[in-house]
């Protein structure tokens, strides 16, 4: 169907006829300061994690204030997603998928609550608060000790209980590098 080469050539020809500008003159360069504002994604290897740190102890306070209304006092029993427990249930008739039982990467937890929570004001807490929340949720699931602390060095090293619980689809498990 669509041929990129033809389209490309067509775009050049059209631009020459209509615009004095070069055919590639779409958009403008992004500067690094503004990219930083939006470049919030975090990978499993920790790339993208910001500076800062947070403790389980502080996370408990932040959670009570910002999260418990929807997720319950200890990350369960609330009106929204249960965050705690369920380990050992995935192969049962009633699997309970939580951060502790199902999520394969701790970096995903930081990335998600940092970008999307609290629901009504996503991204409104400090980076330290997000590290603390991450630490608290991991401790509720028995993955971090009660005196635990997280930062960009330690978070990627956390091994989640269900880390090996996923089977990548064969079609997309290895994407070839184009020639």
């Amino acid at each position, binding site marked *: *169907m*669509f041929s*990129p080469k033809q*389209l*490309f050539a*067509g*775009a050049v020809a*059209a631009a020459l006829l209509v615009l004095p500008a070069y055919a*590639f003159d*779409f*958009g*403008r*360069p*992004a500067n690094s300061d*503004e*990219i930083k504002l*939006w*470049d*919030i*994604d*975090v*990978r*499993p290897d920790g790339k993208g994690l910001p500076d800062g740190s947070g403790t389980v102890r502080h996370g408990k306070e932040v959670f009570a204030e910002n999260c418990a209304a929807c997720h319950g006092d200890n990350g369960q029993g609330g009106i929204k997603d249960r965050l705690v427990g369920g380990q050992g249930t*995935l*192969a049962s*008739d009633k*699997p309970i*998928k939580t*951060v502790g039982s*199902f*999520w*394969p*990467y701790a*970096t*995903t937890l930081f*990335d*998600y609550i940092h*970008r*999307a929570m609290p*629901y009504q004001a*996503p991204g409104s807490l400090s980076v330290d608060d997000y590290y603390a929340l991450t630490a608290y949720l991991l401790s509720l699931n028995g993955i971090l000790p009660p005196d635990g602390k997280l930062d960009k060095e330690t978070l990627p090293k956390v091994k989640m209980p269900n880390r090996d*619980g*996923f*089977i*990548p*689809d064969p*079609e*997309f*498990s290895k*994407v*070839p*590098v*184009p*020639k």
Partner: protein
Amino acid sequence: MTSRNENVTEPSGEDAFSRRKFLTVASAGVAGTVVTGRAVADTLADVPPREVGADLSGHGERSKFVHLAMLPEAGPGKRNVDPSDAINSKAPLGKLVGTITPTDLHYERSHSGNPDLDPAKHRLLVHGMTRKQLVFTVDDLMRMPSITRTVFIECTGNGWENWKKADPNVTVQNTHGLVSTNEWTGVPLRFLIDLVGKDRRSTWMLAEGADAAGVDRSIPLTEEIMDEAFIAYGQNGEPLRPAHGFPIRLITPGLEGNLHIKWLRRLKFGDQPWMTRWETDRYTQLLANGKAMQFQLRMETNSVITSPSGMMEIRPGYHRITGLAWSGHGKIAKVEISTDEGRTWKQAELNYPVLPKAQTRFQLDWTWDGKPTKIVSRSTDDKGNVQPDRKSFIAQMGTNALFHYNAQQTWAIDASGRVSNVLA
């Protein structure tokens, strides 16, 4: 045939008498007359005289006799909720004809509401493993070469009503209403890839929305996806509706609905998936052994009979069975229908044109003898994929997968002509 939840206004006033008379003699109606519904004019003399119509309109509205609505849902089994509580809204498949879903009835699934963004202030940042990091306005995108393509989008959760049990009191809108087909217009992803000079070692792309949740997915950059994906600003000939990503969204034909990132604001090129919440915790399929399928991105070969379907009532005699088939692999090659519980199959007619990765309407003549039976459809696409029967599908996927349900849909018809949802 008629359905209990008719989408047509009850006639009133002077029509009432002839309507009652009609109902006693001929309420079976005519198959496929979704818009006109039951007839209430016994002779041509009953047809109202011609008269001058209303003023011409600045904005076209549906006939006052036609009632079409989506079904807002808060989760499996929590139906017809107030839209403010809904997490998705299902398209009325049983009341639609053809293949294009009306724009205002295209199913919705959003993770933090439907923002209505100011296009003058919206920006698309394209960066990462690229020679240039560029910011585009919506006007920039609209000045670029465009393509127009008709594709289905299907929520990965479509079909979730029937994973474990079949509620007999649901319609095809409940069972399959999280799929729709629209014509989309926008800029080929390839064009942006060339503009920014993607590093050839970049094999994955993160697409992120400007919704509150910043919904983001890692997209594998296969040749097929780089050839077919596009950034859409047009939907059925007009700018996108807010619910569908205004001012711009990603379209990835044939893949999970969640990949078609709405309110698109960022494309980042990388060399591995980011493992976002939406490709780990959600939209992964838990198998019976407790392991979960991940990056099962392609929507499988599927079909459903939309008429007769759940909650409708039919009379013995002639019917035209009709429905929709679709496949994320390509074009629908054939649809077969069984009217005897899967024992024998007949090939349905396909309405042309049959487009790749778009819904295709099928139809088949059928005379119902009035005995209880079950009807079921199965589709085959041009890559040879056959829609599985329920039993073999569940044997492979278990009943906890929650997403990617594409088993054959069976409708049971009892002796009174009532059609209901069953597992098989």
